[in-house]
């Protein structure tokens, strides 16, 4: 049953590490990240500054901790938007299968899929001003069709099962069946998809703040740390290596967790592996 338990555990451990770091940064960071100390710029790693300081004298460890918070908050809320709007749409499309609303919802989905998401995200954040909220919206919009499609696909399978027929003969309406019987049965699929969209959201947030369209200064974010490090990369490569490595490990952890969960939760794969 558990063919890759190790990968799943690595994924959970990495994700938990970043989550705890982000939560910890809410109550405590080693140094204030908004205070610029020009005299203490570009210091090497020491006991006071475990990872050294950047060109403005800010502690890199503290920056990374708060940056984790920014990334996770943006990606998490974007996933929330996608689920809150996309899942009901997908459930409705499945409940009204083959009807005009179903067709409209699915074609609308295809349309959003066809848009170059990064270009639109850059457009939205450039037009409405760079901020964490606009970055969330720009990423969240593209999560909607993903969840709608997953929810519809999963729900269509559940609708054919006998207990749904039983519920219908018992007089339950489509809305109640969707909420009480369909949703719990596709929760597995949605959780796995949420993990994947979460990791994509982290990458998208990093890309947006790298081009200066994410959270505004002085709020630290991994993407902007990379952008600021770019001119210093020749003399101080660590400034670029650390935030990039943080993004990579966070995304890696989430992907490993998503894959592991899918193997664990999807009975079809589980059977095939035995």
């Amino acid at each position: 049953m558990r063919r890759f338990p190790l990968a799943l555990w690595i994924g959970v451990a990495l994700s938990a590490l970043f989550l705890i770091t982000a939560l910890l940064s809410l109550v405590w960071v080693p140094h204030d990240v908004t205070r610029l100390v020009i005299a203490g710029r570009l210091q090497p790693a020491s006991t006071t500054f475990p990872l050294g300081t950047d060109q403005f004298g800010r502690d890199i460890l503290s920056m990374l901790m708060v940056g984790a918070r920014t990334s996770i908050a943006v990606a998490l809320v974007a996933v929330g938007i996608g689920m809150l709007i996309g899942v009901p749409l997908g459930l409705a499309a499945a409940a009204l299968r083959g009807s005009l609303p179903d067709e409209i919802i699915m074609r609308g989905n295809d349309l959003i899929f066809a848009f170059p998401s990064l270009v639109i995200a850059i457009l939205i954040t450039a037009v409405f001003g760079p901020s964490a909220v606009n970055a969330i919206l720009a990423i969240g919009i593209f999560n909607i069709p993903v969840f709608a499609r997953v929810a519809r696909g999963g729900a269509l399978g559940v609708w054919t099962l006998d207990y749904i027929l039983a519920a219908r003969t018992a007089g339950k309406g489509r809305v109640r069946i969707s909420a009480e019987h369909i949703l719990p049965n596709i929760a597995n699929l949605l959780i796995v998809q949420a993990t994947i969209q979460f990791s994509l959201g982290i990458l998208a947030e990093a890309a947006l703040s790298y081009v200066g369209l994410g959270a505004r200064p002085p709020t630290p974010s991994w993407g902007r740390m990379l952008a600021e490090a770019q001119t210093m990369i020749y003399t101080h490569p660590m400034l670029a290596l650390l935030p990039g490595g943080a993004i990579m490990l966070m995304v890696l952890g989430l992907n490993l967790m998503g894959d592991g969960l899918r193997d664990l939760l999807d009975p079809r794969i589980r059977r095939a592996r035995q």
Partner: protein
Amino acid sequence: MPPFGRSSRKDTPFPAFRTRETGFNLGAMLRYALHRLFSLTLSLMGASVVIFLVIEVIPGDSATFMLGLNATPETVAALREDLGLGGSLWERYWAWASGMVRGDFGTSYTYRVPVSDLVLDRLWVSLPLALYALSLSALIAFPVGLVAAAGRGTAADYGIMGATQLGIAVPNFWFAMLLVLIFAVNLQWFSAGGFPGWEHPGAAMKALTLPAIALALPQASILARVMRSAVLETLDQDYIRTARARGLSHRQAVLRHALRNALIPVLTIIGLQFSFLLAGAIIIENVFFLPGLGRLIFQGITQRDLVVVESVTMLLVFAVILVTFLVDLAYAAVDPRIRQT
């Protein structure tokens, strides 16, 4: 060849069934193509309306932006008229959409040249870059995915799967920075950015090499995983067992039968990746200062050159929809079951 394997077409048990399922039915194919063409047109119209409306609601008037804060209302009004910003919403949409059908994409506010000229110019960077990255990605992914599938459960498989997980997790602009650090700064094999133009094909290809590698890494990782699971899927099919029973070695069965069938999902992904690479290079083009489509649209956004943004976005959406259409057609040509719907 065993004697019981010989059978002529004449004594096929279900002749009607045979022609319907395996013969190439041109009528059904045409009907399917027309059906898809119809929904392609609808998608394009829907996309153009969405793009137009998004650009319309953008705060900040292009004319005001171009003339600066000190412009008088009269000059702003005159420029608005000049840029074709007058008229009703419907008139402006019609002028833009019908113009695009004729190949007229409008005139850039900042460059003062037709957008189509700008696009053609930039396409000479973006298209080769996308093709370069895609070839690299396929060249890496095919053998790697095949090796992983053939050695399922071995150390090689685990190593490859771990490496592809890393490849997917790396932000490509960060990977690009690392490539610059190693190959442009330390080893000095490549320049850190810029594009010399196609008058020097060797130098041009060299300038595109680091960006193409940066773009190809995540794509190759995804493609290798798709390749592996597609080959594994076909390995479980009955016809592979049949091939083995006919005396083919495992390697021959994989290469002759599994590989060809596994290519269908792989080609789908390649098609999607191509349209993604055209638009998705926006950040990489900025890292390497390449004058491509992505950089054009990025500059258009920051300079409020909305005609450029509008038309280039539409072109990119068109590319995605067209590739999806072609992939669907290719699917239907290969798999008769799809034509039935």
